[in-house]
């Protein structure tokens, strides 16, 4: 029995090493691809006359959809920020998803809301809508007040009322850079078959925020937030950019994405049974478009920037990561027939296996690997030299992937301009391998199993007002 356990533990530990090597090699390849893709993108942008573009009176109208549940703390700043958008033709649709705080009262007072007639074709089933309001002060602001049934349901209600060919989803605590919407629409119009565009999400913690816009970018003092800055950099600049190459991007963050309204409605809107409604929608869009017209494009563009708060407390971060993993697992399981299915092209053969085997099963392999090492250690079967070599290998590969993201940032976006930030980021790139990544794996491991319990709650994450110290978050 003991022998069998030890053999099993040894086998699992080998699988873990193999997984580490494959995962980090994949990340490195993605990073290398992104170097070329980012270069090409920024070159194209350099010769685009966006100033002319945004002055055109006939640009397509866009609806900015903001689902809000108990968002009295942040919604006001978010709406102030939206006034800075330089896109000439947009309206804002806020969905009050049965808030129990003062969200609706705040909106009513700030925008002088009045009940308004607003027809909708009721394409997507949702919880009952109590009332539709329109601002007397700003004719482009609408509020839907509905019974609470979660974010997906709120988004579907908004899709029923949306009357523009494109809609942009954002969170109630997301801050858009003034040109963000213009650049998203530009990306949509300059690639004919584009059905969805994802912008880049950056972390607001630590930045100076003035009159609705981010004025100075600094690394947050909070260690957890600083580690997440590096993580977002890796995820967006290296990973998501590279998916453009195979047209296999499976994630558009729910905090900032532009979609073709008709396509999303035809694909069935947001799924209310998953907590990862953003990912599930993108996977379903792939499925729908592959079946109906194969020449579509779901793309990531790195220049439209949205800023968002990240959790600064361990428990909040746990809730977020556990939910993300649950969403990922639920989305992948729901669309399992796409996995390794050549009918879905690069999505079925590259993107789905990547997310299934590396992102979904990865944490399971990793955590089981740690247990195996523990068993081998307790049974005095662990070769210290061998274990340290493996540890060094994982550590170095992890650091290399982060450094690659830093290079991408320096070459293209360069948001952190002071040397102090560079040294700090390098430092965090080293430190994150000593506990932080392992902790994330553990949380994702628990999220993987929670996904099968069909939990659909989000968990409340603490949020703060951006301007709590007048200018600095």
């Amino acid at each position, binding site marked *: 029995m003991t022998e069998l356990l030890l053999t099993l533990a040894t086998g699992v530990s080998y699988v873990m090493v193999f997984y580490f090597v494959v995962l980090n090699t994949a990340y490195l390849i993605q990073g290398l691809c992104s170097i070329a893709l980012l270069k090409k993108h920024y070159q194209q942008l350099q010769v685009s006359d966006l100033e002319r573009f945004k002055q055109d009176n006939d640009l397509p*109208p866009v609806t900015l959809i903001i689902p809000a549940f108990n968002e009295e703390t942040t919604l006001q700043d978010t709406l102030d920020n939206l006034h800075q958008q330089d896109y000439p033709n947009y309206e804002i649709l806020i969905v009050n998803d049965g808030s129990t705080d003062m969200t609706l009262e705040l909106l009513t007072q700030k925008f002088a809301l009045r009940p308004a007639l607003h027809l909708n074709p009721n394409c997507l089933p949702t919880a009952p809508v109590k009332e539709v309001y329109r601002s007397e002060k700003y*004719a482009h602001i609408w509020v839907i007040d509905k019974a609470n049934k979660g974010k997906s349901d709120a988004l579907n209600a908004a899709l029923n009322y949306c009357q523009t060919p494109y809609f942009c989803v954002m969170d109630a605590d997301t801050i858009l850079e003034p040109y963000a919407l213009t650049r998203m629409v530009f990306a949509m119009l300059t690639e004919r078959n584009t059905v969805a565009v994802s912008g880049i999400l950056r972390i607001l913690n630590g930045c100076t925020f003035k009159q609705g816009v981010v004025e100075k970018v600094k690394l947050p003092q909070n260690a957890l937030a600083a580690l997440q800055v590096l993580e977002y950099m890796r995820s967006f600049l290296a990973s998501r950019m590279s998916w453009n190459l195979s047209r296999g991007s499976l994630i558009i963050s729910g905090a900032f994405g532009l979609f073709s*309204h008709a396509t999303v409605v035809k694909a069935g809107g947001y799924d209310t049974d998953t907590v990862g409604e953003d990912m599930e929608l993108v996977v379903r869009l792939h499925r729908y478009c592959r079946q109906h017209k194969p020449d579509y494009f779901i793309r990531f563009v790195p220049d439209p920037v949205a800023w968002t708060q990240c959790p600064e407390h361990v428990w909040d971060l746990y809730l977020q990561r556990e939910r993300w993993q649950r969403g990922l697992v639920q989305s992948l399981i729901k669309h399992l027939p796409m996995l390794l299915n050549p009918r879905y092209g690069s999505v079925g053969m590259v993107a789905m296996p990547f997310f299934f085997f590396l992102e979904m099963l990865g944490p399971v392999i990793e955590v089981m690997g740690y247990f195996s090492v523990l068993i081998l250690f307790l049974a005095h079967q662990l070769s210290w030299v061998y274990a340290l070599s493996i540890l060094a290998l994982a550590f170095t590969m992890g650091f290399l992937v982060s450094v690659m993201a830093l290079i991408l940032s320096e070459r293209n976006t360069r948001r952190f*301009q002071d040397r102090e930030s560079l040294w700090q980021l390098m430092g965090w790139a080293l430190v994150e391998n000593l506990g932080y990544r392992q902790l994330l794996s553990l949380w994702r491991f628990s999220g993987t199993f929670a996904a099968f319990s069909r939990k659909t709650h989000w968990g409340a994450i603490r949020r703060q007002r951006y301007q709590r110290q007048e200018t600095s978050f």
Partner: protein
Amino acid sequence: MLFTSAFLWILSFLFALILVTFAFAMVGIFLHFRNEHKAQVWKSREAGWNPLLAKLYLGQCRPEDLWPKIPARESLFFLDYLVQQVERNPLSWRSSEHYQRLCALAVPYLKQAEKKMDHWQAFQRARAADTLGKLAPELHRPLLRQALADQSLQVAGVAFRALLYHADASDCQRLVQAYQRFEQCQPLYIALLLSHLPPQSAAVLLVSKALDAHCSTWERLVALQTLEKWPPQPEYAGALAALALSEDDADVRIKGLLLRVLLRWQCDDVLKEVILAFAGHASDYLRAYAMYALGEYPFAQHVELLELGLSDASRWVAMEAAQSLERLEKQSTDKQVSFSLLSYSQHYSQDELFV
């Protein structure tokens, strides 16, 4: 034995990996320092050039007075700086006297951009075309025309845009012929660019594109969307209405756009016939267009037709009829209502993504 060889393999791999990681970290640090240096140099250059430009704008000096103050080795950077000034200012600035003065200042430096039009790298050619298009499009029209035929779509696209923003009658034919190259864009984007053409010269070309059944649907939609943005061209209304009423052309998107063009042009003599035909059409897409049009162009039977529309089997048609009735009741030009057709037309379309 197996264990030892695996261990050695891992060790050598690890050693190589550490070297690579170290090299990457160095590259990251080098890039940061290089960017920092570049930013400093650029900042100091700008600090020197900004007062010169301010003097020029105020009319305190002429471009000739400033040329000797720019060292030859910095001339390419100065050209970049001038392009940036154009980009940083709002569009309205480009019709100001300041812009004219800036263009006059740029003249001697444009030779470098001209040279780069033959560069082997497509991006360099595109950048040169962009510079010429922003600082001296009239002077470099022949070069831009040449670039329009460039094998790189990026270069051709920049030239296409530059020529359109400064379009004259002599380029209409060339530009209308060229736009099919940019089929990777949405029709609306190309139509936004083409709308800068002078309508009196280009309308005939675009109408013939719209009427030509041999042209692709994409080309015809671009032509119609451009026509929709222009002031009325009543001489073509008859031909467009005939196409809308014909049974041959089955694409409802083209027919819907035809109605929109006729509505925008307020072609009273043909509109009623087209609306009536669409109101009884088998396609709910066209029936919805008819309901929308009735809200914009009411005539004797509009109430009866809209009431019929309200009980239409298609909810899109019914909604369009309801919105038209509301619009007529309010007699308002509510922006929200005008969005509706654009949105619903996408829902009806069987193929809206790929036009």
